[in-house]
């Protein structure tokens, strides 16, 4: 018996749950995380939380449809958006509003989409990003094509694709990992492990000690980070993305986080989730963690926090107004984008729709 292969999975955390930093200042600066940058992260996360709170409120009052909150996942999700370059392509799930906002998708667009209007996915800025993806993990296979395109055209671009802990059980997740390895594609897979797939806890999803180790099955470099630690998220994503861009192949990052809200507004997590677990998770959440750290360092003050919050709320308010003021698409819109050129068979049906037949 000889050992023919060895693997290990590392876990990284720099800013712990009590807002103590386990990293020297030099490393922080080297990673580009000067105070301004961290404040920028903080503001972004505030904005996301304000947006998210508003979205839930809009759903409760019937102004948008079912909505999946990203409460608690702001660190990893903003970090993905901020470490990617504009030329890169993002492939979201459905809980990745934060990343999309960083990528340039407007809140207006997001409200439109969750309000039941396809125009929300016609991103005005990040035009090559894939739209929200609802069938779990299927986006992972798309990332293979996107990254293959980059490689074939010799473009220094990276595809970043996100899925959840539940998503790692899908065949598509694995088929993509394996293909990413085979062709050594410029992809970063981010598994946001928020501990729950609707009502199914992480432990029932897989017997694996870590979800990161699933990358081993595709020969993909894999690691685990604290996904509620903005600093770890930034540093490790940046590294993975840089590596992919340099042609060093794909990687997988399991970001440990927690879904602080219900699965969606249609869900009631109290049916299956322990209150105590939830209370504990709140102690580790990313926004307050960074806030406390910045307060401690003196880079943030209570007054500044107040101003930032007001700014964030104002921006959200404006987007809500522009969303609510948007005239609905004409009913014929459902025909318009079925094909580039509408076939006769569809024209006839469109006529019927218009004539209410």
């Amino acid at each position, binding site marked *: 018996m000889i050992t023919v292969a060895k693997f290990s999975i590392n876990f990284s955390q720099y800013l712990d749950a009590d807002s103590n930093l386990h990293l020297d200042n030099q490393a922080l600066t080297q990673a580009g995380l000067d105070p301004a940058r961290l404040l920028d992260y903080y503001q972004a996360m505030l904005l996301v939380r304000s947006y998210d709170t508003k979205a839930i409120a809009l759903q409760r009052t019937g102004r948008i449809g079912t909505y999946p909150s990203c409460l608690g996942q702001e660190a990893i999700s903003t970090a993905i958006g901020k470490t990617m370059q504009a030329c890169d392509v993002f492939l979201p799930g459905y809980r990745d509003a934060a990343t999309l906002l960083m990528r340039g998708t407007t809140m207006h667009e997001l409200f439109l989409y*969750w309000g039941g209007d396809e125009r929300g996915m016609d991103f005005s800025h990040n035009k090559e990003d894939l739209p929200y993806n609802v069938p779990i993990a299927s986006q992972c296979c798309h990332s293979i094509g996107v990254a293959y395109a980059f490689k074939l055209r010799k473009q220094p671009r990276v595809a970043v694709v996100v899925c959840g802990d539940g998503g790692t059980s*899908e065949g598509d997740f694995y088929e993509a990992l394996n293909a990413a390895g085979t062709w050594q594609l410029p992809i970063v897979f981010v598994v946001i492990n928020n501990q729950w797939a609707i009502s199914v806890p992480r432990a029932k999803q897989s017997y694996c000690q870590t979800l990161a180790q699933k990358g081993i099955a595709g020969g993909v470099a894999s690691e685990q980070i604290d996904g509620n630690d903005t600093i770890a998220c930034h540093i490790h994503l940046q590294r993975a993305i840089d590596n992919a861009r340099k042609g060093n192949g794909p990687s997988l990052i399991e970001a440990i986080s927690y879904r602080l809200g219900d699965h969606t507004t249609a869900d009631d997590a109290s*049916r299956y989730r322990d209150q105590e677990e939830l209370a504990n998770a709140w102690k580790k959440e990313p926004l307050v963690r960074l806030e406390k750290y910045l307060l401690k360092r003196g880079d943030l003050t209570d007054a500044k926090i107040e101003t930032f919050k007001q700014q964030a709320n104002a921006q959200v308010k404006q987007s809500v107004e522009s969303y609510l003021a948007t005239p609905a698409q004409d009913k014929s819109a*459902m025909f318009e984008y079925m094909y580039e050129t509408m076939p006769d068979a569809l024209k006839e049906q469109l006529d019927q729709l218009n004539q209410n037949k």
Partner: protein
Amino acid sequence: MSQYTLIEAVNAALDYELAADESVVVLGEDVGANGGVFRATDKLQTRFGEDRVIDTPLAESLICGMSIGLATQGFKPVAEIQFMGFIYAAFDQFICHASRMRNRTRGRLSCPMVLRAPFGGGIHAPEHHSESTEAIFAHVPGIRVVIPSSPARAYGLLLAAIRDPDPVVFLEPKRIYRAQSETFENNGEALPLDVCFTLRQGSDLTIVSWGAMLQETLQASEQLAQMGIDCEVIDLASIKPIDKKTILESVEKTGRCMIVCEAAKSGSVASEAAAIVAEEGLTSLFAPILRVTGYDTVMPLLKLEQHYLPSTEKIMQAAKRLMEF
């Protein structure tokens, strides 16, 4: 005797059969503690244990494939796919194996499984949550496809599906999960498969429909009756195999036929029903066979979905066109 909504009827049938037959197991995503996202499996895990009411990993091909394996061992798995829009990953296992196990082993093994899924639009759900693609299954030899349209039929047909020795796709019209209540006894009595239910007798026009669209169909029929148009309404119920006899006899009587469903028109089960009548009942017809269906477009997001679904109005207009033909 108790009152049941359609979703409660599903729950009651599962509960009844889990208690009555220990070879029945329920599996799927969130069917356990959560009781299913629509509560179809509410309280079943508490009553029958984690081993028989099984939360699976998030993997539809697995759910179907595992059910096949269980079925070859004599179990009667009732698998839930959370929404019909996520059933496609299970389709490969279903068509390649569930539908063929008996055939390819000359009966040595078989596949008495049920694949349940809520289907259809009209609940303002997100993308992929409003699919009506029953036609895809209706083309697969060796299986049954069953769609109930009322609480009592949901109860009786689901029991029949579970007891059936062959694979059944059981599609639940989620738009009417809680639309109305019906009183019946939870006595384990199944309804027959492979037959239609004639919900309304009529002499002028046969309307065939299934699932939630029977609401609009029956409403239209009432209104048409007041205008002197007497519709016979048939609940297809068994989408596969189709009970041709009932349909053809009705058309022979009425001379007119319309099929109503919410799926995209082309290649729908409405087309199959129309083809049957055109092949075997043509000489009875006074008028063309009309299909009142969804459009050949993607089901739009919620803002426009009501324009996609056939309305009572649209059914009435079609009926008038047929009468005036």
